[in-house]
């Protein structure tokens, strides 16, 4: 009896130790991010103002800003999200709901998972050959957006598949029993219920894409550019213009990299400020996605 008691005590102690360990790891991870963010804010504080957001790059550190860079990054993210979301979700749904379970599907599944581990520079080289030269897209926002979409596609697919798989089987069976087709089951039930997981995948994917430097340098992002892409809204019919997709661009990580390697120490302040803003952009983007996920989850009532 006493031996059994001691065994329970020991197991309970182990349980507590594990909770403690988890907490320490979590706090440590948070502290690192927090310290980094604070340090960037502290260093970049003198430049964090409206002018910094609305000026172009300049040879004078105190006049240089990130207008072209943050607009470029935002537009690239729009393209990336618009491409990666539908393609990734469609691929995942096909694999989960439609694809026959045979060796071809198995190979595709394994490869999708493997693709998530391919270094980003490889995607850059692929995009340089395929998008920039073969398809003639040039060094454009579209080419950059497509490249990053390709990069995060595996992440979106894997996350979506997990989410789709988590939808309970009886829900599907109930819908089929009422005579719904496979498309109706997917579009009306499976997809809406898994939207939370899909959005989580998008968050992780876009957060990775926004900081990527290697692939967009490879396809030819510029370092100095003092004009904005063509505005997407025009005064005349059809009011929407997509000319910006073909425009040259620069992006936040490239601007930062350029500033960090400049001789004038003033540029390092700029790089820190740009880093803080880039982190802020990532948090904002994630915030929107988390809010969307919350709204989707609220609508689910099984």
């Amino acid at each position, binding site marked *: 009896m006493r031996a059994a008691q001691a065994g329970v005590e020991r197991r309970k102690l182990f349980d507590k130790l594990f909770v403690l360990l988890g907490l320490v790891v979590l706090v440590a991870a948070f502290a690192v991010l927090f310290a980094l963010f604070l340090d960037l804010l502290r260093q970049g504080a003198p430049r964090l103002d409206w002018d910094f957001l609305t000026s172009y790059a300049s040879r004078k550190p105190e006049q240089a800003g990130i207008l072209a860079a943050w607009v470029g990054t935002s537009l690239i993210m729009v393209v990336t999200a618009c491409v990666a979301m539908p393609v990734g979700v469609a691929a995942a749904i096909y694999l989960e709901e439609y694809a026959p379970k045979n060796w071809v599907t198995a190979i595709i599944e394994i490869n999708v998972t493997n693709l998530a581990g391919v270094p980003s520079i490889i995607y850059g080289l692929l995009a340089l050959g395929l998008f920039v030269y073969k398809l003639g897209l040039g060094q454009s926002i579209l080419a950059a957006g497509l490249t990053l979409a390709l990069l995060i596609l595996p992440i979106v697919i894997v996350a979506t598949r997990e989410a789709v798989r988590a939808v309970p089987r009886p829900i599907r069976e109930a819908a089929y029993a009422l005579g719904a087709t496979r498309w109706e089951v997917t579009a009306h039930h499976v997809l809406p219920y898994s939207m939370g997981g899909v959005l989580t995948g998008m968050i992780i994917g876009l957060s990775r894409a926004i900081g990527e430097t290697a692939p967009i340098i490879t396809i030819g992002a510029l370092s100095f550019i003092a004009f904005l892409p063509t505005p997407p809204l025009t005064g005349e019919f059809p009011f929407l*213009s997509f000319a910006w997709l073909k425009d040259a661009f620069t992006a936040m990580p490239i601007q930062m990299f350029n500033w960090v390697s400049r001789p004038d120490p003033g540029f390092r302040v700029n790089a820190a400020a740009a880093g803080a803003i880039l982190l802020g952009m990532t948090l904002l983007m994630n915030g929107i996605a988390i809010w969307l996920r919350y709204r989707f989850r609220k609508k689910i009532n099984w």
Partner: protein
Amino acid sequence: MKLTPVIAAAAALAAGLALAPRDAAAQQTIKLDGSSTVFPISEAVAEEFQIARRGKVRVTVGISGTGGGFKKFCRGEIDISDASRPISKSEMDACAKAGIQYIELPVAYDALTVAVNPKNTWVDTMTVAELKKMWEPAAQGKVKTWKDVNAKWPAQPLKLFGPGADSGTFDYFTEATVGKSKSSRGDFTASEDDNVLVQGVESDVNALAYFGYAYYAPNALKMKAVKIVNSKGQAVGPSPKGVLDGSYEPLSRPIFIYVSKASAQRAEVKEFVEFYLSKGAPLVEEVKYVPLAKKAYDLALANFRAGKAGTAFGGKNEVGLTVEELLAREGKF
């Protein structure tokens, strides 16, 4: 959840792509790309030029390195190539094959600076032979202390910092000291980011590094520039004056832009290059490079206006050539 908006958005995107006017904005854009050493100058000129033209002409500047810039240049993707060294033989061939003619224009000097820690009490001047002894491939694993270079220096470890093998600075320094481009010992701390080299020298009393003058100038209080004994036997430190009167040799070098002859026909490119050569000098100084003499800029401008194409170097770098000499040479392809 409605899928319709997503599909509609995708359809609109696809339709927009099909309708997007191709290269509508590209007409008035001047494209520069190439060396990160030349970048600050081109950036400054592009900035001022766009202000002067009130945004009517767009100028973009990229950083692909001198080699990367020439690759794009010889494919006809850019108008002007920034180069921290003359065009090489293989690049000349690539351009010739693509039928791209170019005008070679020196735009400034860079003084390669050899720097040591300010607490280093034993080194003030150095000869090219000592630099060679320090950096040549044969020194690898053998020359480990300062004493190994010069018996008068202490037996303290020698910590070397230098730029990576892809940089034009590395090419020029090895050519000027060891005597053969790209021929260097491999066991030093190499970094493509010159600020890493600067930090290396600032933090280690036994360190020695070389980099462009632009990286020395703002940090002059935190390090000591070594005076280099020139061919006349005078020890000269890096300075704009020493570069201009030719006494700081062999470590001062001209840096270039290469203008495509086809692009130079376009009015806005012509105007930009003329702006570069006539209004560039104060901007060059501002970003801590050494401007050419007025006479040399005039000569370069005359060459450009006359459309004098080709390179004065014939595919290999030369040390100690004055800008006036190279501008007077016949161009080769």
